[in-house]
């Protein structure tokens, strides 16, 4: 077992696809929440493998994409403060804010550094004691425990120049917000794999119970995703929606207790501003009072002009699953990975970037 090729086996994949086709009688719509799934689905051509009865929508699960313009503007304003070093995951620096981007701020002289992990940001703080080092904390339940760990590390090592701008978001509350809005009717959800490694399967249980929508947690390999779709179709055909794990090698029903405890120790739950969705109650993580010395929101104040969205950009609709990238007039014309207008074209987890990079599934049948 090498845990890669086994999950990409074409015979097994075709077998699963046939099984799905045999099982599927109703026309259904499922959404993959996670941007990592969107990319895997398009990279391996999974939409062409599943029967036409199964419509697949991309959801909001891209950390960079859901970051509100106002929050991005704040990060850019912080970058321009004297003696500040901004540390961030790479994709963030290219996303256009209302008036600038972190990349532009960097070119104008701000100290903006790409890190691969939050502990690197703590190291930068250690190495630059006279500067204030701010980490732009984006992501879902996946990145939150590592950010919590970095705050704890900074506290234990008495590093007083490390701060986090906490923009972390929670998955189940935004799923609820999407379902409540009723804008996109769904029969099933491909639930995120890595998020579920942390939170487990229990937090999704309200979805089948209250909304009658099937939920299956999936890994990121092509066979994982096909197995997940098979289980979703089975649930929907039987009319028995529930939460299932199709990624048992990564996800336990109770999740990762230690990681959740760490999140709980450092963060409290509050509202969050989501691009395209707006303020969603109980969907964000704020730093607890006990650790507020590390809270960039408390330590710095910046004045911001009102945010504005780029004209014609439909990232908000794409994030909600209300539009496909193709329905945006800018897609592939004014907005490309080289000169992105919105975040969905920038991020390696964004739906527009996936459509652009791998081709439009609907048109690929011709090749």
């Amino acid at each position, binding site marked *: 077992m090498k845990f890669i090729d086994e999950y990409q086996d*074409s015979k097994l*994949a075709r077998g699963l696809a046939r099984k799905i086709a045999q099982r599927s009688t109703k026309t259904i719509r499922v959404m993959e929440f996670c941007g990592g799934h969107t990319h895997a689905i398009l990279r391996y*051509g999974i939409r062409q493998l599943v029967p036409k009865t199964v419509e697949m929508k991309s959801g909001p699960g891209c950390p960079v994409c859901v970051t509100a313009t106002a929050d991005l503007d704040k990060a850019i304003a912080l970058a321009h403060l004297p003696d500040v070093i901004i540390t961030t995951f790479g994709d963030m620096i290219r996303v256009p804010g209302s008036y600038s981007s972190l990349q532009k701020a960097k070119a104008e002289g701000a100290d903006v550094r790409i890190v*691969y992990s939050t502990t*690197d940001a703590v190291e930068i703080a250690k190495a630059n004691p006279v500067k204030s080092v701010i980490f732009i904390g*984006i992501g879902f339940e996946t*990145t939150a425990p590592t950010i919590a760990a970095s705050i704890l590390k900074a506290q234990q090592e008495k590093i007083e120049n490390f701060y986090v701008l906490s923009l972390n978001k929670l998955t189940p509350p935004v799923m609820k917000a999407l379902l409540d809005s009723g804008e996109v009717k769904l029969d099933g959800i491909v639930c995120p794999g890595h998020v579920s490694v942390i939170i487990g399967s229990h937090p999704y249980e309200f979805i089948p119970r209250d909304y009658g929508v099937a939920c299956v947690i999936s890994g990121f390999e092509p066979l994982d995703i096909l197995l997940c779709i098979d289980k979703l179709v089975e649930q929907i055909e039987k009319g028995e929606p529930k939460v299932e794990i199709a990624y048992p090698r990564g996800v336990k029903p109770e999740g990762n207790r230690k990681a959740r405890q760490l999140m709980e120790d450092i963060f409290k739950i509050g509202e969050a501003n989501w691009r395209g969705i707006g303020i969603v109650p109980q969907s964000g993580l704020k730093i607890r009072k006990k650790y507020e010395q590390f809270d960039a929101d408390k330590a710095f104040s910046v004045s911001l002009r009102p945010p504005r969205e780029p004209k014609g950009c439909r990232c908000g609709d794409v994030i909600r699953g209300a539009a496909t990238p193709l329905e945006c007039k800018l897609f592939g014309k004014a907005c490309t990975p080289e000169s992105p207008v919105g975040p969905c074209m920038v991020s*390696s*987890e964004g739906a527009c970037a996936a459509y652009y990079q791998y081709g439009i599934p609907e048109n690929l049948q011709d090749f």
Partner: protein
Amino acid sequence: MDDSILLAHGSGGKLSHELVEKKFLPFLANPALNKLDDSAIFEASGRLAFTTDGYVVNPIFFPGGDIGKLAVCGTVNDLAMNGAKPLYLSLSAIIEEGFLLSELERIVQSIKKAVEEAEVSIIAGDTKVVNRGQADKLFLTTSGVGIISPGVDISGANARAGDKVLLSGTIGDHGIAIMSQREGLKFSMTLKSDCAPLNKLVSQMLDISSRIHCMRDPTRGGLATTLNELARQSKVGIVVEEAKIPVKEEVKAACELLGLDPIYVANEGKLVAIVDPADADKILARMRKNRYGRDAAIIGEVTKEHPGKVIMKTKLGPSRIVDMLSGELLPRIC
């Protein structure tokens, strides 16, 4: 303590001479270089190829090579990709003040090994020293001259419908080996960079067939970017099969972990050749006899359809577009 480079090493005076005479000449000596004239003089006749490239890799030492080996192999390979036999190279070094002389010596020794393997000579050189912070340790630039045999016509614009696409071996080794050493992303693995001179492999391929239409080394941007360049330049379509592209287990694993696609990861010792279908099998067989072509494979073919586009049949069967690399390769966040 180890001696290091001083600004005075770049002054043009005594220390500059010492640097050249003690650290470069003993390793790279040849009649043209030894003269230390303002320019090197050599004889050549026929069609010549000429190329230049700058090397700013970080870290400068990495598993399987260093900036010196890279600077020789990169330029040798650029010449070879047009079917030229590389002959002479120039070497220009921009050194940051404070750089350790012992490290410089290690790099020059590695340059020596690479030029010996590639059977080329460095016949012109230059050194400059800049203030600390004005360069990152060491930047190298090499230029190269090569000679093209009569009848050889290799260009990115020469691919024709029906041609086969050959790849000389596993992809992504260099990029992943470098990434595994980068600050902030260190992970331990046994993987080495594939950095190697490919001129002998190319000359063996040319010995066996005159119907090699295009060759290119898929360096930065990876295989995906090179295939796109060739499709656009030749105004043809290219179809490749994902399952036929050789990738080492370690590279697959690292790419899975980081959320990268190996077809975008850099190589420094691989080539893509687009050849006449009638000769594809015998060229492949010859490539496999060379250590740098041992894992060579036919990965696809050239089509009339969808000119300028590269299509990949994924492992599962369906097709998708393969676009050029856009921006930097960054690990996924979630």
